[in-house]
């Protein structure tokens, strides 16, 4: 019996040792006290991102944006608070693309690690869940990864979003298509196959397309209107419906992994439409690698930022140069919006001149920051629940591998391909 007991005991000693090892901090621990009005030794900002799981690719893009913003700020000496410069540190955890984990880790950052402020995670569904922690704990939560209006229509006071709404994204795409109709490139009227992810993000996209179609006086007709589950693996049934609908345009709203999976099956099924879009997705380098350049050509996407905005100089040029220097590649909108969310929070802390949560919140409400977003200024209007509002740019994949801005006209760097030339062949 003693032998048996010792055998079991050794097992449980191993388990306890494992647990203790897990308790040991493996990431940098900060000790800044949040919520005070005095000048701290350091400002500690907490964030989670989906560094693994379904949203790992965009999550790691956002990480690059966050880290660049922190590095540049600290290179300048840090945040200017009360006449002193204070270093700012990021405590970043991996929420594994899971909503419950994102919520738990945010609670941990606020109540155990005592961070001063929170930066948001990426993707609407994760932000929607995690933002409740910011509101519950009354701590400023600035995110560049949640775009659905549902996040900002809950009457929350502590949540600020730097992504303009998805409804506007859909409307911008429809305006571009409408322009192509007027130019005689796309027939009028046209029929639409509309697919949207079963989230508030997808619902916003659907509403944007549907409202525009309803207002168009018959120029657009939605002949297929279907939702799909996030992180799906098989879209063949859905794409069969798309084939049966025989629509002219294929408008879908999907996150990056779903876009890649769905479009692979779309290509395999031999489908082709005059306009193909997956909402904000389509120009990612990972997608071209996964699907082949020839299969992503002509996909149009409306996004919050494009690297060609750097040609206008100002903060865009500064961001792009710094990004290239640090990472040796061109940034996409993911990195840009992560960077800009962090910068907005820094700006507000400096404007408040304190790490007092209420003062920083008020500074975010009053924020008017020169920005890298298309209109050049970032604000968080109260009437939209503190969600930023600015125009989108439509970009399109060209056969030479570039993805120029094709709409709006005043920002366009190339002419778009419409109708999709691949269908003719």
């Amino acid at each position, binding site marked *: 019996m003693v032998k048996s*007991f010792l055998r079991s005991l050794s097992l449980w000693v191993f388990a306890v040792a494992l647990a203790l090892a897990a308790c040991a901090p493996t990431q940098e621990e900060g000790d800044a006290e949040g919520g005070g009005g005095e000048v701290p030794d350091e400002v500690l900002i907490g964030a989670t991102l989906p560094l693994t799981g379904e949203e790992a690719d965009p999550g790691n893009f956002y990480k690059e944006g966050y880290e660049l913003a922190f590095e540049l700020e600290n290179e300048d000496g840090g945040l200017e608070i009360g006449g002193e410069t204070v270093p700012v540190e990021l405590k970043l955890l991996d929420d594994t693309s899971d909503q419950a*984990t994102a919520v738990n*880790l945010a609670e941990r950052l606020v*109540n155990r690690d005592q961070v001063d402020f929170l930066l948001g995670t990426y993707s609407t569904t994760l932000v929607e869940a995690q933002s409740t922690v910011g509101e519950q704990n009354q701590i400023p939560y600035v995110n560049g990864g949640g775009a659905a209006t549902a996040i900002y229509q809950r009457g929350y006071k502590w949540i600020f979003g730097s992504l303009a709404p998805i409804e506007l994204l859909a409307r911008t795409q429809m305006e571009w298509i409408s322009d192509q109709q007027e130019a005689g490139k796309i027939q009028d009227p046209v029929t639409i196959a509309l697919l949207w992810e079963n*989230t508030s993000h997808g619902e916003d996209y659907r509403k944007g397309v549907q409202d525009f179609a309803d207002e168009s006086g018959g120029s657009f007709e939605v002949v297929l209107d279907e939702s799909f589950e996030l992180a799906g693996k098989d879209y063949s049934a859905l794409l069969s419906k798309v084939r049966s609908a025989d629509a002219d345009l294929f408008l879908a709203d999907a996150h990056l992994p779903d876009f890649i999976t769905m479009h692979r099956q779309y290509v395999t099924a031999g489908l082709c439409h005059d306009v193909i879009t997956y909402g904000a997705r389509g120009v990612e380098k990972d997608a071209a690698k996964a699907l082949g350049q020839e299969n992503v050509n002509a996909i149009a996407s409306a996004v919050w930022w494009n690297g060609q905005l750097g040609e206008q100089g100002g903060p865009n040029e500064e961001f792009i140069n710094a990004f290239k220097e640090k990472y040796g590649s061109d940034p996409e909108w993911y990195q840009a919006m992560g960077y800009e969310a962090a910068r907005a929070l820094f700006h507000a802390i400096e404007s408040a001149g304190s790490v007092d949560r209420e003062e920083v919140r008020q500074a975010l409400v009053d924020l008017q920051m020169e920005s890298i977003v298309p209109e050049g200024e970032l604000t968080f209007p109260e009437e939209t629940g503190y969600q930023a509002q600015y125009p989108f740019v439509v970009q399109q994949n060209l056969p030479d591998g570039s993805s120029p801005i094709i709409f709006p006209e005043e920002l366009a760097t190339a002419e778009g391909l419409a109708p999709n030339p691949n269908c003719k062949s």
Partner: protein
Amino acid sequence: MRRLASWLPEWASPWAAAGFVVVLVALYALPLVVVLDPYTHGILTQTFMFVAAALAWNWLGGYVGQISFGHAAMFGVGGFVTARLLLSTDLPFFAAWVVGGLVAGVYGLLWGHPTLRLRGPYFAIATIGVGEATRLVATFWSSFTGGSSGISLPIPSGDFKQALYWYALYFMAAVVLLSYYLRKSRIGLGLLAIKGDVDAAGDVGVSATFYQDVVLVLSGIVVGISGGFYASFFSFIEPSDMFGFERSISLVLMGVIGGIGTILGAALGAVVYVILQENLIASYPDLYLGLYGLLLVAVILFEPLGLSGLLMRGARLVGYRPGAGVAAGGIGGAAATEATGGAPEEEPTLEEARP
């Protein structure tokens, strides 16, 4: 102790009752005498809730021996019914939890009545199917669950979140008492008989269908209330978290790590699970489920009675002979007997367990 015994039902152990009251009073007073930071406060609250859910799972998995991988279905139903009630009616939150729990119990009966005729792995496989089917329906029932985005509840005040600690404690205490009652009562004997040999139980007049249905409904109610509590605690729920397979597996893990079939085991399993999760999830987010898997394999191989089995071995070394009621369960009767060195006193018989 004799005086205490005279106040108790004849099947209740005065030592167990005294221990229960001491622990309850200590946990009640803890936040009043020690300043707990909100994080620790929240972890304790969640632990109480998961102890209750693990005990409820244990009624089916431990007492009847029907391992369910589908309890997330009831957890989710309870959570979403509660959330919808809180959003659309003026029901007090505790009433919403109870209604959510009752609906979850009825839902459990709907799928449990036919599937509980299956035994062993067949029942386990059926519950996986039930859990996944429920998750898919919930994901696409956007008007009720909010789809993949889930639904947000109004943000409660800090005081309410503090108060949830005591609500969770009362809830856990009630479930512990119910577990003890179930274990010791005529129903408990029936369940033991069914676990031992369902055909023989039928021969002596124990209706397996009735007893299992009763236990599943009770289990569903408690797990459903836990789901409602979870919704109130986090102010946000979504289908893949509430109905996900990970949620079901977490209840199984709590039971197995602590020791299936025992009250102490399920409670200890929940405590260890929450503590491990809270610490591993931040440090090793990729590995924590894998580590649970390793722990599960290790328990099955070396200590089928889990933590409670280890405690009993230790107690026996110092001369304590645990009663049959303390040592019920194990993942499998044969495995448990073998792992405990063939000690027959660890496997309760109907005679030993009879009050």
